[in-house]
């Protein structure tokens, strides 16, 4: 196993294990946990080694089946994708610890099916980050989506309906993306991203290229639930089985943001995106500001913790899209840092939700009364996650917000700055409402000593890891930005 192929193994491990989980898991449930955790631990360790290698020697690539680019499929690791590999595999690993427990409660005897899809989804996400081929990206995008449809449909009640709506919307998004690829192929005759990027400046056809870009962007926006294309997300994520939500909520939208960055800057150029069409760039930042404000306001109307969080996810997508389109390096730094931080914050909050659901069976606001006394450790971690979402130092959320705000000020995009501040304030209201409900008791139960009902250890450990990570990443965001993210910025920043 040479280290130059290691990134392929990062992706291959969960893919292969998925089949074993399906086969062995039918026979004996006991095998599922070690197999799943084992392969994800391997992926995490390998991806960290890959990151170290990229830091030391720069990016490298693997050509599948030894077919050379631009004809063969290339799997490329550069700084940005190495960071994403680590993020995805580590988040998946942490999430799985908790998902195993909640799945055994919610979907008894279906675990082998659940974790087969689950692992293929992770493999798909890792593949999305690695691929350097525009069409291959479409296929992997659909692999992640199809597995997600399946996972969501395993939920109770309305979940199949939500999943069906997601299928319709998701397929429209993917088809749009495919159309964009088609236009590019017609113009350049190539599917390799780097190759297309080389050919594009040499040919004319501005309108067709712009159409391709527009189709690809809109397609990805649907997939990442960029307001107002977000309609499918709240239902799908809040009705999914808890185990699936823990994985999908932190990673799916964030990986799609990464794809947007990849498509924008690996295929197209800064010149085409920002300099030739300042009005478009300006408009998208305003759209992002609007997305943030609207999604935050919608979050205010929710009476269920999970649904509230799904709207916050939609708002956070606005943060990152806006940050990327600010067209300065501070905003881009903020967007990439926020991909990492938002993934971890969402993970932390969803793990807390999983723990609460495991014990209480509901996360509606009314059922959360007095929960600080019942589940002090879970709620302590939840509070850290909430502070990160609000953006209180030294949690990670503050620092990415800092760069985004600073980028907005540098670009003179005051609408975006105001939207970010507004959303921080709304988040403060949202989370302190929860904290208040959890901290105070029902009337009449004053000073009561309810029985302590902490979640099982296998749910607390990942929760505490993620909460600690939020603070560690926050305090370490200086070195993180200087040593890793600055190098991961797309060319031209």
């Amino acid at each position, binding site marked *: 196993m040479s280290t130059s192929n290691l990134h392929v193994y990062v992706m291959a491990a969960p893919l292969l294990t998925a089949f074993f989980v399906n086969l062995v898991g039918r026979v004996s449930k006991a095998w599922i946990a070690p197999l799943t955790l084992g392969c994800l631990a391997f992926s995490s360790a390998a991806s960290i080694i890959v990151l170290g290698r990229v830091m030391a020697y720069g990016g490298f690539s693997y050509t599948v089946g030894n077919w050379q680019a631009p004809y063969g499929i290339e799997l490329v690791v550069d700084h940005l994708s190495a960071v994403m590999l680590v993020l995805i595999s580590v988040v998946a690993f942490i999430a799985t610890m908790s998902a195993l427990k909640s799945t055994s409660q919610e979907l008894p005897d279906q675990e082998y099916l659940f974790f087969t899809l689950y692992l293929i989804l992770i493999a798909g996400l890792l593949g999305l980050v690695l691929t350097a081929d525009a069409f291959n990206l479409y296929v992997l995008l659909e692999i992640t989506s199809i597995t997600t449809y399946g996972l969501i449909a395993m939920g109770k009640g309305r979940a199949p309906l939500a999943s069906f709506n997601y299928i319709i919307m998701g397929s429209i998004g993917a088809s749009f993306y495919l159309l964009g690829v088609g236009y590019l192929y017609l113009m350049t005759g190539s599917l390799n991203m780097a190759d297309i990027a080389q050919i594009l400046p040499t040919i004319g056809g501005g309108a067709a290229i712009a159409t391709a870009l527009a189709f690809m962007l809109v397609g990805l926006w649907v997939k990442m639930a960029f307001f107002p294309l977000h309609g499918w997300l709240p239902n799908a994520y809040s009705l999914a089985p808890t185990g699936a939500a823990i994985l999908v909520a932190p990673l799916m939208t964030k990986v799609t943001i990464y794809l947007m960055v990849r498509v924008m800057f690996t295929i197209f150029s800064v010149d085409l995106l920002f300099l030739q069409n300042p009005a478009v760039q300006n408009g998208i930042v305003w759209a992002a500001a609007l997305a943030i404000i609207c999604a935050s306001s919608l979050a205010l109307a929710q009476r269920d913790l999970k649904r509230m969080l799904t709207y916050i996810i939609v708002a956070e997508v606005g943060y990152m899209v806006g940050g990327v389109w600010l067209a300065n390096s501070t905003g881009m730094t903020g967007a990439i840092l926020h991909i990492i931080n938002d993934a971890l914050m969402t993970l932390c909050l969803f793990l807390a939700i999983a723990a609460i659901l495991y014990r209480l069976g509901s996360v509606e606001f009314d059922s959360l009364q007095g929960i600080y006394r019942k589940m002090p450790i879970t709620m302590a971690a939840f509070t850290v996650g909430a502070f990160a979402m609000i953006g209180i130092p030294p949690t990670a959320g503050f620092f990415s917000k*800092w760069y985004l*705000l600073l980028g907005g*000020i540098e670009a003179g995009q005051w609408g975006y700055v105001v939207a970010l501040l507004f959303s921080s304030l709304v988040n403060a209201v949202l989370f302190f409402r929860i904290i208040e409900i959890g*901290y*105070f*008791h029902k009337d009449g139960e004053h000073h009561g000593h309810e029985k302590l009902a902490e979640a099982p250890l296998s749910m607390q450990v990942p929760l505490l890891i993620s909460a600690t990570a939020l603070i560690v990443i926050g*305090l370490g*965001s200086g*070195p993180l930005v*200087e040593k890793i993210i600055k190098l991961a910025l797309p060319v031209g920043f």
Partner: protein
Amino acid sequence: MSYQTSIWPLAAVLISLIGSIPIMLSDRNPNLRESWTILIALGKVAIVASLLPTVLAGGGFEFTIVEVIPGVPLALRVDAMGMFFALVASILWFLTSVYSIGYMRALNEHAQTRYYASFAVAISATLGVAFSANLLTLYLFYEMLSLSTYPLVTHHQDAEARRSGRKYLTYILGTSIGLALPAMLIVYSLAGTLDFKIGGILSGTGASSQTLALVLVLFLFGFAKSGLMPFHGWLPAAMVVPTPVSAFLHGVAVVKVGVFSILRVIFHIFGPEQLLAVNLGWVITTLASITILVASMIALTQDNLKRRLAYSTIGQLSYMILGAGMLTAAGMTGGLLHIAMHAFGKITLFFCAGAIFVAAGKKYISQMDGLGRRMPITYLAFFFGSLSIIGMPPLGGFISKWNLVIGAVSSDQLLLLLVLLSSSLLNAAYFLPIVYRGYFAKAADPVFDQGIKEAPLFCLVALSITACGSLALFFYPDIFLRLARLALFS
């Protein structure tokens, strides 16, 4: 000025943060828990005091924790101004801890462990603000203080506590995120640094005076803990808390952190010369004067003793901002000194209010007639505290107010002089009747003639010490005076 690298500033900040863990662990053993609190408080005073000689000699300490944003590390620095505030806060925390033991046990309050632990975290944040080397670190500890005091504000966990907790966070978090954070970002994008530097960091950045004015106003209102009107409403609402919390947090730590932050910004971000050059001092003095007069007048109308003290605090806090806004040597010295003088005076008054509540169960001034004869020590201490706030010799408050008056005269702003004098009269009008009626009026309640005695010993000792401290500060203000001068003119 040279700073030597030392871990002690960090130790001073962290000792009580880490100390909150043993406090929480000894939940079942109150004596052990309170011993921890006292021990940690003593340790804190000792560390701060050990740093004092170097600072007085014109030196200082610094410690960089980690660089979080290019050019802006999380860093602590002990300079004269920080030392000034840290000294006040750590000494008074120790006394408050002593007082708390008497108060909380006498009233048999619930959740005392949470109370002591939150208190320990809050004092860590307070020292963190005092020792911050830059605005980002200050902001971090400022937010930490806001959040760690939420459990204290909502201590009783009833409907009223919920309401005031909500109000507290709305004002404090709302302004710090909505106003102070963008102001900080604008400063960073102008200057590329957030370091506190004598003479400020904004001079020479070419910022227009409109931008500077905007940033100044954002900061003044953004640090709403200073109670500058119209963002003062949280303070009276927060008076539902146990009295030691009001005394320490809403007489000293929280509110002074707000003022301290504003002073830091005026002295070390803008720099007095810069503000004089663009003529922005009037913004500060106008806002402060309005707050002083309006708050004092509202205080007159309050019958609830703690609410009266709260409005009095709002008014007195603006004295400090007013002094800084005069931008003259005496004015700024007076403003800074008033942090210490007011702290000792006001904490005494709050301690007395708590002692009255513990001993007699009375909250309203109109029900306290004749109580002074039963609680002579408490009322004497109250008298001392009142005189200090009014600014009468021989109490500490006189020194700071005298400096403020000189500042007003030397900057030729006679209107400010008028504000100071009329406010002092108002202070006398809302404090002295309480003392007079306590000693000389006919007892309001026949119960007073029977069983009421002084408050528990722990309470009495604490309030006597702070009252004496107020007195002593008149005769020996040297340390604080020297620190203030070092902070402003070195």
